């Protein structure tokens, strides 16, 4: 088993600078976007670009993670980025817009390479699996002109790739993380299908056949409506999500993210495995998303409560 003592010590030192629950509360309580910008700048979000102060921190995060572990270990973190870039590229090319601004760094494949391959329909430069997904996603979108079906296909391909990477690593923490990603993704899909009263054949295509749920039963429950879905979820380890399903989509999705964060917290007591590296990446990414959410809420003068119900729990 690989040991990451040096890397984890660096992670622990960095964790001390993560925003705490009190920091987030303070950020929520400031009365203007300028004050919020000053607050986050004091806490390391230094960027010349006021429209996206998190961009620099995101770059620094990837640079930091790359120094901590080998590519095989952090592959599980990079794969969702690849599939996001595929989704953005396929849709941008289909709509005939320049989609390069929608792409993000950090994937296993270069973002521009993915975009170019999708644009030119030449996938030789890409890894076989990514090439197959790009090609198939483009076919689905062109044939059906349904962005939702394309998203479903790419999301399922991403979950399968993450699950394979976790299995290949043989690391129990990564396997559990991959399972939780699949489970929360399936829950969110099932919830949306139940709320929008989709039929069983649509749900069967939408739900990913992986993770810890009995997916055949989950699909049937989703087809039965929100109450049936809640009854199905209640006795599972995601039971707490069921009560939030009844409140609103925003709090339910936040609860799904919080479930993963609670699992990530177990890495706080690890000193040698790769778990704290994965957990730090997840925690910092969640922090960046929270900062982005609050700043954009302040910019659009949204009510504090509306922003607060979407803010996920912090790692520290």
């Amino acid at each position, binding site marked *: 088993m690989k040991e990451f*003592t*040096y*890397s*984890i*010590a*660096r*992670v*622990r*030192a*960095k*964790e*001390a600078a993560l925003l705490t629950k009190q920091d987030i509360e303070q950020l929520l309580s400031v009365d203007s976007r300028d004050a919020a910008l000053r607050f986050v700048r004091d806490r390391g979000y230094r960027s010349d670009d006021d429209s996206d102060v998190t961009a620099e921190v995101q770059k620094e995060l990837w640079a930091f993670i790359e120094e901590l572990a080998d590519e095989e270990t952090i592959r599980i973190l990079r794969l969702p980025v690849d599939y996001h870039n595929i989704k953005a590229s396929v849709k941008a090319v289909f709509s005939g817009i320049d989609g390069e601004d929608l792409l993000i760094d950090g994937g296993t494949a270069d973002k521009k390479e993915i975009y170019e391959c999708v644009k030119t329909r030449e996938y030789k430069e890409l890894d076989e699996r990514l090439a197959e997904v790009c090609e198939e996603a483009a076919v689905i979108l062109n044939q059906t002109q349904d962005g939702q079906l394309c998203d479903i296909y790419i999301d399922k391909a991403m979950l399968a790739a993450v699950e394979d990477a976790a299995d290949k690593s043989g690391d129990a923490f990564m396997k559990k993380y991959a399972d939780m990603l699949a489970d929360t993704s399936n829950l969110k899909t099932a919830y949306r299908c139940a709320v929008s009263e989709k039929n069983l054949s649509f749900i069967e295509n939408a739900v990913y056949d992986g993770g810890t749920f009995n997916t055949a039963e989950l699909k049937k429950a989703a087809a039965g409506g929100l109450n049936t879905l809640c009854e199905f979820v209640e006795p599972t380890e995601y039971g707490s999500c069921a009560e939030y399903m009844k409140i609103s989509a925003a709090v339910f999705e936040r609860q799904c993210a919080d479930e993963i964060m609670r699992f990530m917290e177990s890495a706080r007591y690890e*000193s*040698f495995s790769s778990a704290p590296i994965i957990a730090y990446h997840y925690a910092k990414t969640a922090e960046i998303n929270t900062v982005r959410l609050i700043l954009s809420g302040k910019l659009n003068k949204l009510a504090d409560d509306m922003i607060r119900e979407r803010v996920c729990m912090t790692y520290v």
Partner: protein
Amino acid sequence: MENMGMVLALAGAALASILAGIGSAVGVGKAGQAAAGVVTEDPSKFSKVLIMQLLPGTQGIYGLLIAFITLSQIGILGGSAEALSLAKGFLYFAACMPIAIVGLLSAISQGKAAVAGIMMIAKKPDQMSKGMIFAAMVETYAILALLVSILAIFGIAGLNI
């Protein structure tokens, strides 16, 4: 065969210093990796993590001490070596084993505790003393083994076998 007593006693002394030394090297090495990680991010914590890194190093010193005492008792150190009975040689060998084995294992364990303590310092530098106590607890068992080895070696010297 007549030198087997001396061979066994010398093997005991060598193992005390080798095994306890290996344990300390592994423990200090692990703690050193963690210390380097913390200092990479925050160089001001150097002195704090250095103290933690040194903790697993004591077992190596205990092993060396036992090796010295044994070598001195059997006359190799000082140049007055005489033939040693097989029984006495074996007794010296056995006397060296507590610090050899406990030294090896406790230094590795202490190294792990020191790593955890160093990571605690990275997040909460004001809790350094607690981190030191956790790692120092492991030292108890190395000291007990050292004591047994010392008492046994001095006891053997008085035996007429």
